[in-house]
């Protein structure tokens, strides 16, 4: 990132410290949720490296502001669809972390009963309609949720998270066109972290801003250039959510952000050396930025510290819960394929 951009963003951030859009409580709530993601994933990474967690692990460290800012623009009963980078989204929408952590640990008490793992931490009780690991596959689902909700007369809004890489899948195009012609209450939120595994967006996406692709569908768009700023993301997403709820159709929101870690833990080795670029982004830690902002606003750390202690406790509880839970039984593998138990037909030979 250029120095100019960097300065521009700091300016922009400071200008925002006016609480026009968010109450102080919402700032605290945002900080709480962002910190949860940070700690949840940091501990998960640690324990994964100790061999406690099987499979791969895709963290959203560095993207907390974008995740939480977007989720907080939703009502509790609004819907959300996510992707393989699945830990942040449900935490951002206020899911209980215990079953999420237990899922990483492949336990019976996991949110998916141990069947999903790191790429699928979807908690349907909070309106999460899937975190799906096939890139782009969540986009049509989000359109359908909005369509279904409209048809059932419930008018809920659906927020769909997807990456810069996903914007090159055909599913993106079909989903946006459908949402547009049917004028559906969907907010397509592109988490542009600049990379799809080892492929830089600049080489894979044929347009400067993914938000510009909205024009191909006569769709409204929002471009959030500073995705490390919680409030900027909130404001843009909120505008999109309000538009959707008012029956004025979908919006494509693009947020420029960055992932601090590898594409995934357990990919064997460092795939890309992101060198200086990574260094620059690490200087703009979204959790840190929000903490400083609140501190500037309030001038008192008491509440922040309380939140920090609370999150520490929650994470410990979640880890405790996970580790003390049982693994599923082999027989459980035959459940949830259909409404009926599959072993009744086939059996384990």
């Amino acid at each position: 990132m250029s120095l100019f951009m960097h300065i521009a963003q700091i300016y922009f951030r400071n200008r925002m410290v006016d609480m026009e859009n968010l109450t102080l409580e919402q700032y605290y709530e945002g900080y709480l949720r962002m910190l949860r993601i940070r700690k949840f994933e940091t501990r998960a990474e640690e324990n994964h490296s100790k061999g406690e967690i099987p499979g791969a692990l895709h963290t959203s460290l560095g993207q907390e502001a974008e995740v939480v800012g977007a989720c907080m623009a939703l009502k509790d009963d609004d819907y959300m669809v996510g992707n393989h980078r699945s830990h942040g989204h449900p935490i951002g929408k206020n899911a209980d972390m215990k079953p999420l952590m237990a899922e990483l640990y492949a336990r019976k008490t996991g949110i998916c009963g141990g069947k999903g793992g790191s790429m699928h931490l979807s908690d349907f009780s909070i309106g999460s309609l899937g975190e799906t690991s096939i890139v782009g596959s969540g986009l049509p689902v989000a359109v359908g949720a909005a369509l279904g909700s409209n048809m059932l007369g419930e008018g809920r809004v659906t927020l769909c998270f997807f990456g810069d890489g996903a914007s090159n899948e055909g599913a993106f195009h079909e989903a946006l066109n459908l949402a547009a012609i049917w004028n559906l209450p969907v907010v397509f939120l592109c988490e542009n972290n600049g990379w799809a595994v080892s492929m830089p967006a600049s080489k894979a996406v044929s347009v400067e801003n993914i938000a510009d692709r909205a024009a191909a569908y006569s769709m409204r768009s929002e471009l959030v250039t500073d995705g490390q700023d919680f409030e900027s993301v909130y404001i843009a997403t909120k505008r999109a959510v309000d538009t959707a709820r008012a029956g004025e159709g979908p919006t494509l929101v693009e947020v420029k952000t960055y992932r601090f870690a590898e594409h995934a833990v357990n990919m064997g080795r460092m795939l890309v050396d992101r060198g200086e670029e990574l260094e620059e982004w690490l200087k703009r830690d979204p959790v840190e930025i929000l903490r400083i902002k609140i501190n500037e606003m309030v001038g008192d750390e008491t509440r922040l510290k309380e939140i920090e202690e609370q999150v520490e406790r929650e994470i410990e509880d979640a880890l405790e819960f996970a580790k003390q839970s049982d693994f599923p039984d082999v027989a459980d593998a035959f459940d949830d394929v259909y409404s009926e138990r599959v072993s009744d037909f086939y059996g384990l030979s």
Partner: protein
Amino acid sequence: MARISFIESIRQAQYEELARDPKVFLMGEDLVANVFGTTTGLIEEFGTDRVRDTPLSENGFVGAAAGASMVGARPIVDLTITSFVYVAMDQVCSIIAKSKYIYGGQVKLPLVLRMCMFYGNSNAAQHSDRNYPMFMGMPGLKIIIPSNPYDMKGLLKTAIRDDDPVMSFEDGTLWSQKGEVPEGEDHLIPLGLADIKREGTDATVVAVAGGVPLALKAAEELSKDGFSIEVVDPRTLVPLDRDTIIRSVSKTGRVVVVDPAHQSCSAASEISAIIAEEAFESLKAPILRVTTPDTHLPFFPNGEKALLPSKHRIVSALKRLLN
């Protein structure tokens, strides 16, 4: 009961279920224009919201059906022709088949994917697939494959009420076939229940879809030579009624499996393998398959006709077993 066509039985099933449950809706391409005749009168009754034309975006709208079903609606998707499902394959295999499982049963996906097998009439290879076997090895999908108007209506209505995703493979060679079909709410045929279309003692023909009427004709022909042929129609491939098949083979000891799909990894292969595993002791002769050889269906009519299962080929296979 009224005598109606296969197509009309589809229309009635859709009509009745749309009328019964406001959560049911239908979407797909060219429904309003009613290309195949399965939506006659539906738009007038239910409007273009619940009978919804889609753009050419199969992966998009099949996925939208998945999403809608997750929030409580019950979509029926008319994919028109079987080969268009390839465009939507990701949503079918990764979302529809697997969501209930990967989320540990938190969600259900009550939706129906309807598709016509449009073969036998010079539509060439891109429009002629009989591809249900592909989905038999993909857990999470149920599969109905009716062979007459009565079964078509009863199975489709059950499928629409089922809480799991169901694929409905509708054989275009049967479209104009007519049969007695009950009207009204209560004509439901359970999934996983085979039907013995003709009883017999000398040999069993297990046949699916358009293979069933051919098998019945073959049985009729052989009855003139004094042979008693049983014809079993599984009607649904997932779940598959193994018991009825095994029982029949245990009785007759001879079996031909008829399936319009390509031979390799066909439903016929699966049924044969089940029999070879579970009813081996009763077998008096090899298990023969009458399928489409592993070449594409050509446009030229004489070639296409020769490749597909026929009464003649079934009779030959049975004679091989009976001599």
